[in-house]
């Protein structure tokens, strides 16, 4: 090859081969994690979804949302968890898990931070709601609905408190510290007298409103309003998280997840964004905890053990870490399966363990693999570039340049 050739590198098969060999050995060192969309079953779903027009997508979403709201009223046979478990309450439990999974997905799925103590945030949120509304609590009392933002703010604060010292750690260390944090919160709930250990707090508040017969609408035994409230919150949170995901913040998270050092030298303030992921995840966990406390009406130190953290994590991984719809699905499934199949409920950890192993073997990206369109933020800039390039003669043969570039790229991103 003469030195006067234009820069048209990598012409020879040999060159490619050598480079690939080298690359293979690099990968063996274990860094690269190819996040490619699954090509099987659900992967096609995503293709088909992208092929729909905007109106069709919206139409479809509206139907799904309406069906989701009607779910406890329809109480479909076969799907129902009755007679074993009240279906409306089961729906609430699924929604609660789904919300938790959406929050944990921000931490684990987007930013790639392995948090094994997520239950701690859930616990903090529960205690917030309980201690601010239960008559057993000697402290300031506020209306229940106000405890939701308060719980979020408090857990967010805890998230930052835990995040700032630990997020300088990487990988395994972070997992161990968060695991410890989960236990610390549970143990504090046991030993701090004000948190009343196993005795706990009775009659946690609930949203206002009474039915015609004078009983509260949001009673402990009626799952429907609680489910609707939680579902509404899930929709709002998912929309907000979706916006974040497509923003600069989302791109930063994905970059951190893929290669933290590389992200840093691209100009991403990695530490700051990791703390943000932690804080946002924590706030959503706290919100879910406050909802749980309100519905159950009773909070003590019994429900916040490590296995619950692992169950939350299983929900995210099962659904597809990094995919918010996957997280909702995973969360709902992890809650639903033991409620529906009460005979096997006792073995749920065994079953989820096996399910996770199988998922890892056959579908390592989870049920719904993540594939964010990262360019959303810079897309306008990039479109300008590609269309500008499209005007140049050398690019005439490139179908991806020009006005159609965006559509082509979007499709390509899903392919």
């Amino acid at each position, binding site marked *: 090859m003469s030195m006067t050739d234009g820069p048209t590198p990598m012409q020879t098969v040999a060159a490619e081969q050598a480079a690939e060999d080298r690359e293979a050995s*690099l990968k063996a060192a274990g860094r690269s994690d190819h996040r*490619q969309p699954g090509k099987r079953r659900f992967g096609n779903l995503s293709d088909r979804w992208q092929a729909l027009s905007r109106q069709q997508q919206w139409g479809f979403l509206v139907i799904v949302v309406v069906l989701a709201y009607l779910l406890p009223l329809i109480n479909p046979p076969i799907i129902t968890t009755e007679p074993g478990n009240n279906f409306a309450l089961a729906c609430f439990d699924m929604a609660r898990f789904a919300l938790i999974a959406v929050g944990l997905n921000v931490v684990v799925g987007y930013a790639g931070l392995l948090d094994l103590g997520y239950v701690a945030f859930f616990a903090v949120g529960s205690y917030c709601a309980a201690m601010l509304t239960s008559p057993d609590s000697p402290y300031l009392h506020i209306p229940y609905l106000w405890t939701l933002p308060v719980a979020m703010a408090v857990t967010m604060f805890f998230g930052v408190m835990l995040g700032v010292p630990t997020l300088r750690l990487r990988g395994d260390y972070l997992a161990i510290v968060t695991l410890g944090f989960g236990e610390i919160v549970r143990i504090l709930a046991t030993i701090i007298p004000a948190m009343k250990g196993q005795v706990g707090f009775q009659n946690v508040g609930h949203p206002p409103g009474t039915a015609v017969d004078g009983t509260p609408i949001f009673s402990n035994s009626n799952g429907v309003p609680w489910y609707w409230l939680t579902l509404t919150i899930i929709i709002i949170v998912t929309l907000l998280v979706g916006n974040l995901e497509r923003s600069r913040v989302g791109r930063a998270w994905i970059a951190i997840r893929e290669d933290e*050092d590389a992200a840093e*030298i691209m100009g991403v303030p990695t530490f700051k964004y990791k703390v943000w992921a932690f804080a946002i995840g924590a706030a959503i966990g706290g919100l879910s905890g406050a909802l749980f406390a309100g519905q159950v009406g009773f909070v003590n130190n019994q429900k916040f053990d490590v296995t619950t953290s692992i169950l939350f994590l299983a929900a995210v991984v099962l659904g597809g870490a990094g995919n918010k719809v996957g997280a909702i699905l995973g969360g709902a499934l992890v809650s639903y399966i033991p409620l529906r199949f009460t005979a096997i409920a006792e073995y749920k950890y065994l079953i989820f363990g096996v399910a996770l192993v199988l998922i890892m073997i056959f579908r390592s990206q989870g049920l719904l693999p993540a594939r964010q369109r990262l360019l959303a933020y*810079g897309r306008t800039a990039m479109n300008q570039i590609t269309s500008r390039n499209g005007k140049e003669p050398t690019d005439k043969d490139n179908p991806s340049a020009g006005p159609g570039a965006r559509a082509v790229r979007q499709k390509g991103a899903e392919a």
Partner: protein
Amino acid sequence: MTLLELDGVSVHYGRIQALRDISFTVNEGEVVALIGANGAGKTTTMRTISGLLNCSEGKITFAGQDITKMKAHIRVVHGISQAPEGRGIFPGMTVMENLDMGTFGRKDRSGVAKDLERVFDLFPRLKEREKQYGGTMSGGEQQMLAIGRALMSNPKLLLLDEPSMGLAPQFIRQIFKIIKEINNQGTTVLMVEQNANQALAGAHRAFVLETGEITHSGTGKQLLEDPSIKEAYLGVG
């Protein structure tokens, strides 16, 4: 004019000292090569300049400003950009998304289009593979992507850590030519290389690093002709 100056820089990994009292300068418009055996501390030097490692002693000045304590992501904004060893591209992002990440720290959105054109001119292959995932690119293509991505921040100083690593001989020549081209376009380049022959031939000045210390320095030509360097690094005795 001096663009980058390291003054008595020492770096430790825990208690292991990887760099001892390193001092050198890179002038604006130069290509400077850093050569040395495996484990000599070349990557450590690069990561210290880009800010991924902190120095335990010494001072780093960039464009007249003390950046010793500056965080890596801010150094990018000031004009230091690194294509890391082993490429360090984002495997799950497409080529275009990788390049887009290169603009993350930029304040001037308006310059992005121009720089993308520059990158595509230097590496037409990247344009062809716009939508391919970084992780599925061949080694050489990933190297182009890493360099292209680093250029997307429109750096004053481009740090290249073994740009020829694992590449076939024909392509190594291409890469050096491209580096020269980048330099001609006005970007100062500091590169680490195992390929001492070509690196010295293509560099204005060079330094030899041995177990964390600079042992030789001079113009590329001088070092090429230095007998001790010939013996140790150029494969002729």
